[in-house]
């Protein structure tokens, strides 16, 4: 093992079960020849059946989100039509579907939403689309920030490290949820032109910004540790001695070595952001009607109207979210194992 990029992060220096150790050793013995860690990871991952299935489920959700407009076009409805006014025969005067099971029928596959009678199927599609879009954006933003600040702090040390670490400590002491709900109106008001409707994108930007501000610290902390230990390693020392600029060293030598923790952490962060975003919409500070959103569907589901008259409704957002989160967590485990087969579970 001479190539520096093959060096493993310090996180993998775990004490081993003897049998696990021997497996790992032999694994390497066979496969080490001429394969990059990425290829190795891919080979290991492909063998993990649960991981592959979870990945398929996750991909399915993303595809559904991406193709929501296409699917609803084929299905022939959109999530904005007020069916309670279009098809009043299907509802009572309070907007509860008259048919049992939330009005599930051939026309409305997942039934109708009590209240304004939106089509649940398309609403869920678009809800997934919007929630995932926001969460992906938050993940990208937090990863970029976390990588930048974490690696900088760890590699440069000194004042930069001190400053970043204090900021991290400070932000970690924040009551996150409280901060979210308190700052959402503020952030929205920063963008809104009082003349026009608060555009949906402003809420989206605010949601992303608020979660981003309090989302990057854990990753930064992890990467700081990794970069700190890398900074003392021989190949970095060698690059430094040979006169490479710090920026170049970070880019060429440090970053390739922190890919593993970044990938693993991202797969854990994304579902957490999905649930956090949904939580905000649940509390009424995220996306609001009529913009479809996963969390906002939960908020609807927890109203007395739904709980008393139409329990069926709450299962669509509920079950789909559980499946998504479970699949994503399983995927996260698989990704971690694929990168770092020694970690025992």
């Amino acid at each position, binding site marked *: 093992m001479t190539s520096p990029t093959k060096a493993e992060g310090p996180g993998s220096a775990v004490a081993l079960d003897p*049998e696990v150790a021997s*497996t790992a050793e032999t694994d390497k013995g066979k496969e080490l020849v001429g394969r990059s860690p990425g290829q190795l990871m891919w080979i290991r991952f492909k063998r993990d059946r649960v991981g592959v299935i979870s990945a398929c489920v996750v991909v399915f959700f993303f595809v559904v989100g991406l193709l929501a407009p296409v699917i609803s076009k084929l299905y022939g409805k959109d999530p904005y039509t007020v069916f309670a006014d279009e098809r009043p025969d299907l509802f009572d005067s309070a907007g509860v579907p008259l048919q049992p099971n939330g009005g599930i029928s051939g026309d409305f596959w997942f039934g109708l939403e009590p209240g304004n009678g939106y089509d649940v199927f398309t609403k869920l599609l678009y809800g997934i689309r919007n929630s995932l879009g926001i969460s992906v954006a938050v993940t990208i933003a937090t990863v970029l920030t976390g990588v930048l600040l974490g690696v900088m702090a760890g590699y440069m040390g000194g004042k930069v490290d001190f400053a970043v670490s204090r900021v991290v400590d400070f932000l970690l002491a924040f009551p996150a949820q409280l901060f979210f709900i308190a700052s959402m109106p503020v952030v929205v008001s920063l963008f809104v032109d009082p003349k026009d409707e608060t555009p949906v994108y402003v809420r989206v930007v605010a949601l992303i910004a608020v979660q981003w501000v309090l989302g990057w610290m854990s990753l930064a902390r992890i990467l700081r540790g990794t970069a700190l230990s890398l900074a003392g390693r021989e190949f970095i020392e060698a690059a430094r001695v040979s006169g490479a600029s710090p920026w170049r060293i970070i880019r060429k030598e440090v970053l390739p070595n922190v890919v593993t923790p970044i990938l693993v952490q991202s797969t854990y962060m994304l579902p957490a952001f999905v649930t956090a975003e949904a939580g905000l919409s649940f509390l009424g500070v995220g996306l609001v009607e009529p913009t479809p959103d996963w969390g906002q569907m939960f908020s609807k589901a927890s109203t007395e109207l739904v709980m008393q008259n139409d329990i069926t409704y709450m299962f669509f957002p509920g079950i789909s979210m559980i499946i998504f989160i479970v699949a994503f967590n399983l995927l996260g485990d698989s990704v971690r194992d694929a990168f770092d087969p020694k970690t025992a579970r």
Partner: protein
Amino acid sequence: MTTLTKESGAPTSADAGAFLSVRDLRVQFKTEDGIVKAVDGLSFDLERGRTLGIVGESGSGKSVTNLTVLGLHNPQFATIDGEIVLDGQELITARERELEKLRGNKMAMIFQDPLTALSPYYTVGRQLSEPFMKHKGASKKEAKDRAIEMLTKVGIPQPKVRFDDYPHQFSGGMRQRAMIAMALMCDPDLLIADEPTTALDVTVQAQILDLLKDLQQEFGSAIIFITHDLGVISKMADDLLVMYAGRAVERGAMKEVLGAPRHPYTWGLLSSMPRLNSDIHQALTPIPGSPPSLLNPPSGCPFHPRCAFRSEVPGTLCTDTRPPLGAGRAAACHLTAEQKQTIFIDKIQPRLR
């Protein structure tokens, strides 16, 4: 897999005389990639008061063998076949409860890394006393006296004070001594030392080795000494077992094996080791290639892909047939005895000077 015959010549059942007798030991782990044969048909004997050295590269099955002797593998993950007889008692089929009575009592182990092998959460004294209290039914007071006695014996200054210290308050050498003291608490008849000196610097290493020898003389224990350092082994062992890919490839008295090795792998080991008295211009010769995968070991002689002398063996013997290991002083190689001797004298020995 090729025609693997029984290890002809090896005794099929435990020698009545041997204190520890291992027969045809096979340890396999199931992994997602397939079955790993970590130990594949290993046999050896050890008598009281003697030291058996086991050498080999990483992954050759040394540690697995010894953990198996202690019964520390989880049967859920490992399949173990063969026979291990300690002082007339069969260990592989023994119940967990029986093994617990033997461990730390009749047989004890010194682990490689004293930093991780001692629990950071309890005092050294407590960790020492525990097995004594359990196995000998001693009181706390008696156990403490014994522990202090042992700490004194392994050369720890102020043992009474150190008794209440935590492992992190000890230096590396002291920790290793404490480990040894712990292993010796119940006067074990069998002591397994798994690279006990690898983590230590040379002066401490020498002290520890002396200590082990002294203690062996005093207690008459049998010692299995695992290392990949031939220098250390030459100071400690009476007999030597060279392991490769989960098998013994050469066995014999230490002096014979090191003085006149008969297996190309042993030659390789010796050639790759620097010596104090050797010519500094003399290049070391590493063994080419890397250790074999235990998932899918090479056919025939597992060493053949790396063996420089394969061409000396006629036909496809090396790739087809696994060479047996004879009884007593023996090497598992298809080369004839004469070939081994000539090659060693002509090609290997000059390099070792």
